[in-house]
């Protein structure tokens, strides 16, 4: 009996082949993340989509902790705390290093009713006390970031410090193992906090959006977003600081140091030679904390470091801003205009509604504006600030391994799973203590080398947007709210899977029509390749890609809804954007001419 070659219109997850040279990729991921034969009957009947929003490239073994830990957290809040009536948590599987996710629905009406009772009481408490709870949340996160900063990773030197002998200090080997446990726990706590408000925040916003669409069927999505979005958005502060520094450089006459093509070190070297330059550098230093904790990507990979780690990104922005200012351009975020538009839209739409609808509109808009600071701020605080610091903390363990010959490079630690690191740390503690020969220095380097090679090859493979069964209807509020994966979107993916597809459809995220040359960018490392006037095609962007947005004419993404970062930033920069096309990065090649219609939500491949 032959198994069907595909289920519905998506490929079966069991039919996908391993790219040549990538055999054995499975060892990098937990046993439970595979599409295994034991669960075949169930898994083949489920709908799985590639979470390219958070995992656009193959996962390094260690980084898979940023799949488990957030999905533990989101499942916990959604399923065990708030008990969202129709949906439990999100499962994940890995295909060729790429992460596919699927929701667990609640189908029993009695159970849904039971959960509704929990949800109303618990979610109601959060909504009713939002500002107070969110204030506490900010305190928790601040404390967590301090705790992470204070976490010491002790070196394993030849002799224990005097304090161990004379002051009863904990031994270094115990301390380093404990520090590792502590680091893992801090990550779990961060993700726990991250998801505490997320669903409820997006849920309030989505409800407002639905009310708008029910009463104003033609309202553009971006108008809904514009009515809700905050004015003083944390995410835009880092770039605002760079614009201020750019003005300062011109005012104090040090702008000559910012020459296109110079490295940050070269620029700094010139600046240190004058009083004005040194004053400017002092000013730069003063904004680094916290604004340079901006990440160079969406934060879920160790490779997305912060501006502190990689100053090329902010310096490229500075060069761009200074050039634009000298060319007489206005580089300020038009915050007055944004504020005026926000109020104009809210007032005039309200005036168009009947009395009943207007009351709901005004209440839900107020609620959406209450929850939105969290929606906008958690990204900077959790995903950028905490996470970039956390990867650096793990690098400190990498240093300990390098010092004892286990790895050549501190970043090699990310090629081990978190449990393998634990095991290697145990061996290191043992052999450091005993003085006997360690196996690690010979055991791990070939594994690290092979995994790096596999990841590189997997990076050249393009995963299908979805696998498994095509669902009749998407009911999971989290998948709809957070990923924009609606019934309509899934069915469009399924249709496009069959068609030749010179036209892609997605969400109209920022209005306008532009034709131009596509630039497909898969990782943040490639953003330097983007040329002026190209159209960015990517899985997902983050505002940390700021330098790109002053160059490009439009953006197209694989995944994301109208509140995704590409959508928000494109509206800020007045660029057309189509998000959530499912397959832009696989269907479009760099150099092709495409037409992006950010009003209709379509992308046409012209040649």
């Amino acid at each position, binding site marked *: 009996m032959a198994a069907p070659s595909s289920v519905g219109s998506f490929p079966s997850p069991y039919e996908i082949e391993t790219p040549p040279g990538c055999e054995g990729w499975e060892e990098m991921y937990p046993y439970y993340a595979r599409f295994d034969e034991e669960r075949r009957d169930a898994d083949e009947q489920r709908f799985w989509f590639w979470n390219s929003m958070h995992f656009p490239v193959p996962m390094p073994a260690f980084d898979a902790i940023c799949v488990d830990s957030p999905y533990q957290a989101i499942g916990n809040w959604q399923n065990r705390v708030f008990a969202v009536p129709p949906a439990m948590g999100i499962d994940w599987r890995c295909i060729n290093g790429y992460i596919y996710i699927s929701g667990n629905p609640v189908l029993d009406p009695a159970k*849904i009713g039971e959960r*509704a009772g929990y949800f*109303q009481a618990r979610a109601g408490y959060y909504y009713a006390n939002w500002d107070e709870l969110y204030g506490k949340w900010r305190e928790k996160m601040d404390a967590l970031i301090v705790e992470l900063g204070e976490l010491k990773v002790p070196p394993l030197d030849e002799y224990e410090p005097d304090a161990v002998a004379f002051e009863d200090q904990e031994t270094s080997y115990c301390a380093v193992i404990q520090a590792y446990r502590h680091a893992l726990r801090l990550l779990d706590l961060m993700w726990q906090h991250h998801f505490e408000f997320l669903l409820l925040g997006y849920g309030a916003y989505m*409800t407002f959006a639905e*009310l708008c669409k029910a009463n104003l*069927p033609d309202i553009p999505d971006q*108008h809904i977003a514009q009515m809700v979005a905050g004015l003083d958005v944390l995410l835009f502060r880092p770039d605002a600081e760079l614009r201020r520094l750019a003005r300062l450089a011109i005012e104090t006459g040090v702008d000559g140091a910012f020459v296109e093509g110079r490295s940050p070190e070269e620029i700094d070297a010139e600046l240190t030679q004058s009083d004005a330059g040194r004053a400017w550098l002092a000013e730069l230093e003063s904004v680094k904390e916290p604004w340079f904790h901006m990440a160079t990507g969406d934060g879920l990979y160790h490779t997305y470091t912060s501006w502190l780690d990689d100053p090329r990104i902010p310096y490229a922005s500075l060069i761009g801003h200074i050039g634009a200012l000298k060319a007489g351009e206005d580089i300020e975020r038009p915050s007055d205009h944004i504020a005026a*538009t926000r109020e104009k839209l809210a007032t005039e739409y309200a005036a*168009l509604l009947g009395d009943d609808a207007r009351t709901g509109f005004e*209440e839900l808009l107020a609620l959406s504006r209450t929850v939105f600071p969290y929606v906008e701020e958690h990204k900077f605080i959790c995903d950028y600030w905490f996470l970039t610091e956390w990867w650096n903390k793990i690098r400190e363990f990498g240093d300990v391994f390098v010092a004892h010959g286990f790895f050549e490079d501190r970043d090699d630690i990310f090629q081990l799973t978190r449990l393998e690191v634990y095991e290697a740390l145990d061996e290191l503690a043992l052999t450091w203590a005993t003085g006997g020969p360690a196996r690690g220095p010979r055991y791990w380097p070939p594994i690290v080398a092979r995994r790096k090679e596999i990841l590189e090859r997997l990076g050249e493979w393009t995963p299908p947007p979805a696998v498994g069964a095509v669902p009749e209807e998407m009911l999971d509020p989290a998948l709809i709210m957070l990923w924009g994966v609606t019934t309509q979107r899934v069915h469009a993916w399924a249709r496009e899977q069959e068609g030749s597809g010179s036209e892609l459809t997605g969400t109209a995220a920022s209005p306008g029509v532009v034709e131009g040359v596509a630039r497909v960018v898969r990782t943040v490392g490639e953003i330097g390749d983007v040329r002026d006037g190209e159209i960015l095609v990517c899985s997902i962007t983050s505002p940390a890609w700021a330098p790109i947005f002053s160059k490009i004419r439009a953006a197209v993404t694989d995944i994301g809804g109208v509140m995704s970062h590409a959508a928000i930033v494109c509206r800020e920069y007045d660029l057309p954007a189509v998000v959530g096309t499912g397959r832009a990065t696989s269907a479009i090649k760099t150099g092709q001419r495409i037409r992006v219609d950010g009003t209709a939500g379509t992308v046409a491949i012209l040649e």
Partner: protein
Amino acid sequence: MSAAAHTARLAELRSADARAYGGKGSTLGELIAGGIPVPPGFAVSTSAFRAFVEEAGLGGMIAAETSRMSPDDVDSVGAASHAISQAMRFAPVPDDLRVEVSRRYAELAEAVGVEEPPVAVRSSALGEDSQDATYAGQQESYLWVRGADHVCDAMRDCWVSLYSPPAITYRARLRADDPAMGVAVQLMVDAEVSGVLFTCNPVSGDPSMVAVNASWGLGLAVVGGEVTPDDFLVSKITREVVREHVHAKEVEYVPDEAGRGAVRVPVPEERRSVACLDADALGALVDVAGTVERYFGSHQDVEWAIARGGGLFVVQSRPVTAVHKPAASAPTSAMAAVMSAFGVDKKA
């Protein structure tokens, strides 16, 4: 003095004059009062029609013909219509009415500084342009009419259209007796583009949108459904064009080169598939839509024209008769709506 017994300038009319001048004339008067750009003109009262029938002694003949016919018998309707129309066409327009119309026309000519300005002569029926009974399309319009005598002829043709087979059938079914008709005479706009707009999206019911249909030339092509017009949906609030479909517009109506009447000609190839409105023109239409809607306090279906060389004019407005109501059910509270989004049973 009976100097203005049967006519009035459009600007003098208000909705209360609908009984005397018909719906179209009184609506145009209201539009002018609302500060909306309407081509100038005058209206002829239903009393003129009655005077015409009386003076020509047609009353008995019309009553006899209509009582003889049966609305379900197409042949009898056709025969009645033919007999009445013929009799009316051969009956003279009363002299005092002819003098009065000529004087109004001369005033118009003087106002625009053109000797024989082209005008549109349109029927302005009682009950027309009302929300309840849309007679739209059952009466005639005559475009690019020039000279007082031709205006009088066109006016009589409008009256004749009151006895077209569909019109008399319609009235017979409604048991509406004693028909009468006003006539509106309006300076012609040499339209480069014309069309209709709705002050809401009549399909979705969205009140924040203006729906615009537009095509090249005089309005006949769009109103008569002879072209697939360009189709725009524009936000009232931001003026953004939310949806735009540009179609190939094959034909347009333009003034006949001979100076009288409008003719249907093919649209030159290079203009067919070009959008006939740009952002500025759409913005001006949204402005007008807002003014008309505010003035009447209800959604309106507006005929408009943009003159060659610029200038936007409204030539007709009537309440939108069938607006789709958005299917939204208002939640009992914002929190109930949020709960429902998370799948909490709405009945719970």
